[in-house]
C-alpha cells in the first residue's frame, strides 16, 4: 500500500508539479491551496505525510505545522520553499518540520526526502 500524502501549495502550477512528481510512488489524497484548508484536510483524511509550502496566505507553513503538532497529529511534515535562508529553515524545523526541500531541487530531492522522513529520519536539500 502506497503512503498517503497531502499537498498544501498556493501556486497552482507548482501544486500540479508536486503532484505529478509524487503520484507514481505515493497516493496523493488531497491538494489544497492555503494553510487553513491544509489543517482541515489533514484532520479529515489523516495522511501519512504533509507537503507544506512555507509561504501561504492566511496560515503559512510553520503555522500549519504548529497547529498539527498541537492537535497531536502524527503526520510527517516536509517543507518546500524557494528560499535557502538558514533562519527560515531553522524556523520551519523548529515548528515541527521533518524535512526541508528547496523547490529548485524537487526533481532530485523530493522523493528521497519523503522516503527518509517516512523511515524516521530527517532531510534538508544540500544546496542550502
Amino acid at each position, binding site marked *: 500500500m502506497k503512503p498517503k500524502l497531502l499537498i498544501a501549495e498556493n501556486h497552482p*502550477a507548482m501544486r500540479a*508539479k508536486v503532484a505529478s512528481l509524487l503520484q507514481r510512488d505515493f497516493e496523493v489524497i488531497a491538494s489544497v491551496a492555503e494553510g487553513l484548508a491544509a489543517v482541515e484536510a489533514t484532520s479529515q483524511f489523516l495522511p501519512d505525510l504533509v507537503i507544506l509550502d*512555507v509561504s501561504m496566505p492566511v496560515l*503559512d507553513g510553520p503555522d500549519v505545522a504548529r497547529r498539527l503538532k498541537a492537535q497531536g497529529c502524527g503526520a510527517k511534515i516536509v517543507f518546500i520553499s524557494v528560499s535557502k535562508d538558514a533562519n527560515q529553515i531553522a524556523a520551519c524545523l523548529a515548528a515541527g518540520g521533518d524535512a526541508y526541500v528547496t*523547490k*529548485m531541487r*524537487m526533481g*532530485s530531492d523530493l522523493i528521497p526526502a519523503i522516503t527518509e522522513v517516512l523511515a524516521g529520519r530527517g532531510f534538508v536539500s544540500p544546496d542550502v
Partner: protein
Amino acid sequence: MMQRTKRRKTDAVLGESEVRFRLVADTAPVMIWMSGTDRVCSYFNRPWLEFTGRALQEELGNGWSKGVHPNDLNSCLDTYTRAFDRREAFEREYRLRRHDGGYRWIFDHGVPRFNSDGSFAGYIGTAVDLTERKLAEENQERFRSVFEYSAVGMALVSNDGRWIQVNRALCEILGYSEQELLTTNFQSLTHPDDLDADLSCAQKVFTGLIRFYHLEKRYIHKQGHVVWVTLTASAVPDATGRVSYGVAQVQDITARKNVEAALRRDQEELQSLAGRLITVQEEERKRIARDLHDDLSQRLALLCVDLDILRQNLVGSTEAARELERMRRETDELVGDMRRLSHNEHHPQWDLGLQHGVASFCHDFSRKHGIAAKLVHEGDLKQIPETVCFALFRVLQEAMSNVAKHSGADRVTITLGVQGHQALLRVTDEGRGFEIGSERGLGLISMRERLRLVGGTMRVNSSPLQGTDVEAVVPIPIPLSSNILGIGRTGRNTSHET
C-alpha cells in the same frame, strides 16, 4: 466852607472804604489789579506782588507788562485796549513770569468800574494761575486724541458690559457706528463660543481679583462674519478702589488667523500627502515583492525541476547534459537573485514574524557590510501589530543603512522589544557619530514620517566620536490579558470596600 466840609467827609469815607478794600484785597485768594481812566495800572494787591516777586512801584503804570511773556504781550494789551475803549468787560489768558522766573498761565478777568456818581473810573481785574488746569486740559486733550486716533480699537466698558466710550478703530473693527455701539454691550457682539471665557475674566477684573487680562477672541462683525482679535482688558478703579469701568484694547488679528489657518491646512495636506505617498509606496513594494515571490520565483523553480527531469531522461550526448546542467544552475541563481531583489523590496520572512524578519535582516547586514549586528529581544513581539512591524522594519533598514554608510563602526546593537504598551526599536553604534542638526539626508525625516503614521516618535542621540543612538517608540494596543487583569483589579477594590 460847607462844600469843603462835605468834601473832606467824603474823602474820609472814601479813605475808609479804600483801606477796607485793600485789606480785603490783600487777603483774597486771587490776584487783583486796578487801573484808572488813564488806562495805566494804579494798584496791585499783595497776592499779585507775591506772585511776581516785585515791588508795587515796579508794577505800577505799565511796569507789570514787563512780566508778561513776549509772545503773549501784544494780544494781552490789545484785548485790554479794545475793551477799555468800549468800557466792556474782558477775559484774557497770558503767561506771566512768577517770582521763581518760570512763566505761569494766567486767566485775567477785567471789568470797568464806576464811581458812585456813575462816572467811569477805570478797570478792576482778577487774575488766577490756571497752569495746572491748563496742563490737565492738555493731557485730557492729548489722551482724547490718542484714544480717538489710535489704530488699536479702544473702549471704556461699564461693569455690566455696556460700551461707554468707543474709538474710531473699534467702530471700524466691528463695523458699527459709535452711536450703535453705545446702545449695546460687548456680550452681544462676542462669538458665542468665546463668551464664557471672556465673561469669567471680565468678572475677575470687575471684582478686583485681577488687574487685567489678555485674550484671543472672536467678535461678530455687523455684516455677520467673524473677526478675530486680541483683547487686553484692564480695570479702571475709582478713588475708593471700586472697579466700575474697564478699558478694552482690541486689535484685529483676523488676517493673521487666516494665514495661520491656511498654513495649518497646507501642512496637514502635505502630511497627509506624504503619508499617502508612503502608503502607496509600501503597497506598491508589497505588490512587486508578492509578484516576484508568489509567481516568478515559483515558475523559475518549476523550470529547474523540469530541467532536472529532462537531464535525467537524457540519453547519450554528454555535451547536451552539461549544457542542461548549466541552464539549471543559471535558473537556480535566477531564483536567488529574484529572492534577494524581493528581499530588498519586501521581506518575505515577514510571514514568519517580525523577530525572524529582523534576525534575517541583521544576518544579511553583517555578511554584506562586515559589521557585527547584535540583536536583543525584549518582551512578546507578537503583540506588535503588522502595520507597526512594518514601520519599525523600515526604520531599522534606514538606521542600519546610516550605520553602514556613515558610522564607521564595526559593531551595532539592535534592541527590539515590547515594554508596557509600547513597541521599541533601538539601534546603537559606537561609531563616529554626528552633530545634531547636521543630519540632513540621513533619512531621519522619512523615518519620522513613517513612525508618525503609526502614532510613534523617534529620538536620536549623537555627537561626534560618541556614536549614535536611534530610538523609535510606537504605542501598541493593550493586549487582552492585561484587560482581564484590569477587570480583576477593579473587582478586588470593590471587595475591599464592602
